Each structure stands twice: as C-alpha cells, then as structure tokens.
C-alpha cells in the first residue's frame, strides 16, 4: 500500500490544536494533582490510623481501578444525581473537559501521593533527628528541610508520572474531547488514512515526552548536584 503523508501536512493545524488540548489536560491535572497529593502524602505518613486510613483508602481505590472507569464514573455518573444537576457545580460537571480534569486529577494525585510519601520516607532518619535536636517544630521541619530535601528525591519518579499521565490522557477522547488522540480519530474518519495520522500523533506524543524528560534531567542535575544519584521505585500505571 501507499502511504501519503501530505494529509499530515494538510491537517497539521488540527493536530496541533489537539496537541494543545492534550497539554492543557496534562498540565492542569498534574498541577492540581500535586496540590491534592501533598496533604494526602503527609496524612498517609501519620502513625495515627485515623489520619492515615482515609488517604490509604483513597489511594487504594484510584490506583486499583482503571482510569477509564473513573472517567466514565465522573462523566456519566455525576449526571445521575439530581443534587449534582441542581448544584452550582453542574455547569462544570456538564463539560467533558472538566470531567476529564477531575478524573485525571484524582487519579494522578493518588500516584503522586505515593511518590511524595516514598520520597519523604526515603530521607535518612538521622537528617530528621538533626532537625529535632535543634528544637524545630514539625511544621518547621517539613517546610524548611524535609520537603525541599524530598523534592530532589522525587524528581525522577515524578517526571515518570507526568509521562504516564500524558499517555493516559488519550482516554479523554472517549468522552468526546478533541485531544491529540480524539482529533486524530476525527481526521481519520474523514480521510481514511489511519496509519499516517496515528503515526503523526504518536510522533507528537513522543516529542512531548522527550521535552518532559529533558526538562526533568536538567532540574534533577541542578538539584542533585552533590547528592549522588538517588531515585525511588514507583508502581507503573496499570
């Protein structure tokens, strides 16, 4: 068969607009996810089972169920409840974009919380004791030493999570969103050139991944100049 890549050129503007949607989805949910993840991680570390129990269940649920199911639950599930339809949240929950953001944020926050927790717990106990013996309070300890220290440890795993989120964001196309994958499918429906267009979409995903990896390498190098290499293991998205 003949491949004709001129369709890629022809539809490039639309592919790029899909790319922009993908970037918006990933950026927003990564940022919101990190904001949700931090208190989750801190609560998860607590020795008090009343405090660590809830984040445990939350993380267990969002890591243990498919992201696609979570998206459908938010998108199709929320509208089933009258309270939701009548609430001030409805204009938001009606929008596929915000449904995707909510599902992605909840999902990535669960993974990110585990990454943060791992990083904080990877800090050697002696460095924590060095904070205690000069009379730091818990808050001072986290704010001044432990979180900045964890930041360096967290980088490789966190960069990885962003790339996983980037790939998972293709699921947004299942709820009518025209992200890169969704856009590719609509183009193909018109042109019948699946190989060319999907190859082009794949190349764009790859390019974004490379940029993310590159940025993280730079930051990591700067941050961990004198630390030697350190990284923690995190479970892959299932």
């Amino acid at each position, binding site marked *: 068969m003949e491949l004709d890549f001129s369709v890629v050129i022809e539809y490039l503007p639309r592919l790029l607009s899909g790319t922009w949607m993908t970037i918006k989805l990933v950026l927003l949910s990564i940022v919101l996810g990190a904001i949700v993840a931090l208190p989750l991680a801190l609560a998860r570390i607590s020795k008090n089972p009343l405090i660590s129990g809830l984040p445990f269940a939350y993380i267990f649920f969002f890591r243990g169920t498919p992201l696609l199911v979570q998206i459908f639950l938010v998108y199709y599930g929320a509208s089933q409840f009258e309270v939701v339809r009548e609430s001030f949240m409805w204009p938001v929950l009606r929008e596929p974009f915000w449904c995707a953001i909510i599902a992605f944020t909840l999902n990535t926050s669960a993974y990110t919380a585990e990454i943060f927790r791992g990083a904080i717990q990877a800090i050697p106990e002696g*460095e924590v004791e060095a904070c205690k*013996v*000069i009379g*730091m309070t818990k808050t001072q300890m986290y704010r001044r030493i432990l979180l900045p220290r964890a930041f360096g440890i967290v980088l490789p795993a966190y960069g990885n999570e962003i790339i996983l989120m980037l790939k998972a964001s293709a699921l947004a196309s299942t709820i009518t969103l025209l992200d890169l994958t969704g856009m590719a499918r609509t183009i193909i429906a018109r042109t019948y050139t699946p190989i060319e267009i999907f190859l082009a979409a794949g190349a764009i995903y790859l390019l974004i991944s490379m940029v993310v990896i590159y940025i993280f390498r730079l930051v990591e190098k700067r941050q961990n100049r004198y630390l030697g290499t350190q990284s923690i293991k995190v479970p892959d998205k299932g």
Partner: protein
Amino acid sequence: MSKDPALVLKDIHKTFGDHEVLKGISLEAHDGDVISILGSSGSGKSTFLRCINLLENPTKGEIQFNGEALQLKQGEHDLIAADMKQLTRLRQKIGFVFQNFNLWPHMTILQNVMEGPLHVLNRPKKEVQEYAEYLLNKVGIADKKHMYPNQLSGGQQQRVAIARTLAMDPQILLFDEPTSALDPELVGEVLGVMRGLADEGRTMLIVTHEMSFAREVSSEVVFLHQGLVEEQGTPEKVFGSPDSERCKAFLSTVF
C-alpha cells in the same frame, strides 16, 4: 542560693520491647562539667544520651534542666513529652552531635550552620551569617563554606556538625561517639575541636571510645555496664584504680 545543676537525670529506664536497656541511671552535670560516658558496645550509652533530649523516650525517670523539670506523660509504651513547646525550647539549649554527622546534604555548609539560628531562633540574617562564619573559622572549615557536605571528608563534616550545633548557643553539648565513624587519621582534628570546647568551660556529655582523650578532658567519667552505672568518678579514679572488676577488664581491653 546555690545554682541548680545544668542537667539532672534521675533513675532513667528504657525498655525496647521486653529488652531492658537502661535499668535506672542517674547523673548530674553542673556548668563546666565534662562527663565522659564509657562502656562496651550495647551497654546503653547511646540510648541514655538520646533519652536526655527525648530522641528516645525513656520508660521511667526524670529529667531537669537548670532546675526546670521536663514535662513527661505516659504514652503507649514509654514517657512522651507533655508539652511540645517546652520540649522544643529546651532542645534549642541542648546541642547534640551525632556519630554520623547528619548534615543536610542538599544545603551548603554555611546554610547548614545558619539554619537553626535563622529559622528556629529567628535571629537577623546578617548577625547569623557573621556568627556562622566565625564558628566555621573556629573549627577550621571557613574556606569550604559554599561547598556541600558530600564534598567534605568525614572529619570536616563532623567539624561542620559541631559548628552547626554551636550556632544555636547551646548550654549543654551532647556527643554520641563523634569520632567512631571516622578514618583513624581524621579522628585527631575532631578531638582537637572538642578539646578546645572543653577548655572554654563548656558543659559536655561525651560518649566515646577514645580513652586517652576522655582521661585528659573529663572532669568525671561514668562507666556503664548492662544499663547500669558500674563505676563513676574522676578520670584518675576510674582509669587509675577502679573498684569494679568489669571496669578494669574493659579498660585492659581498650588500652
């Protein structure tokens, strides 16, 4: 009116699980005292020292600083601080130097030393920096202040750790085997700094295996055995003519 002792420890007990590590240790330190704590490995020296500032929670006992009792309450397994504000305030006055230095590796030497006075004591930055530089100079590391801990030798890191401790202006200094993690050729530089501190009249409790150092600088020597004080007295007494057979045996193995 006589001044209260800087530190009073009464009948300190500590149990890990069902292993009783400290079986009732009492000790007093007055201003200017340099007390060395000796004992074989596992005798409870570190545990005892760590109970003083509640890095380890004693199961029983009393702790006083300058006559002020540390407020303790019964926790699940041991005694815990009843008043966190009091604990952090008292900890600011009790310096602790670790065997493994425990510098913060993501901060420069200068940042390590400035952290406490700047962010715990909230002193003005300019003053803190001047003092930190003075202390680094005093321990002989002034030229390395912009380096990171991992770029320094063990002996240098330990001297930074001592400067970091001094930066808080502590009234009492606790040392837990400060030279045990060092290569033999680096031990001297750290002991030199500590000897200087003793000469300044600082109040110090030192857990150490450096016998000749302990003999020279100490005003009092305590020998622990299986969680109890087995021998106690002046260095002349403990090193010269100990009453305890175990202490004699211990000293004969280390000299």
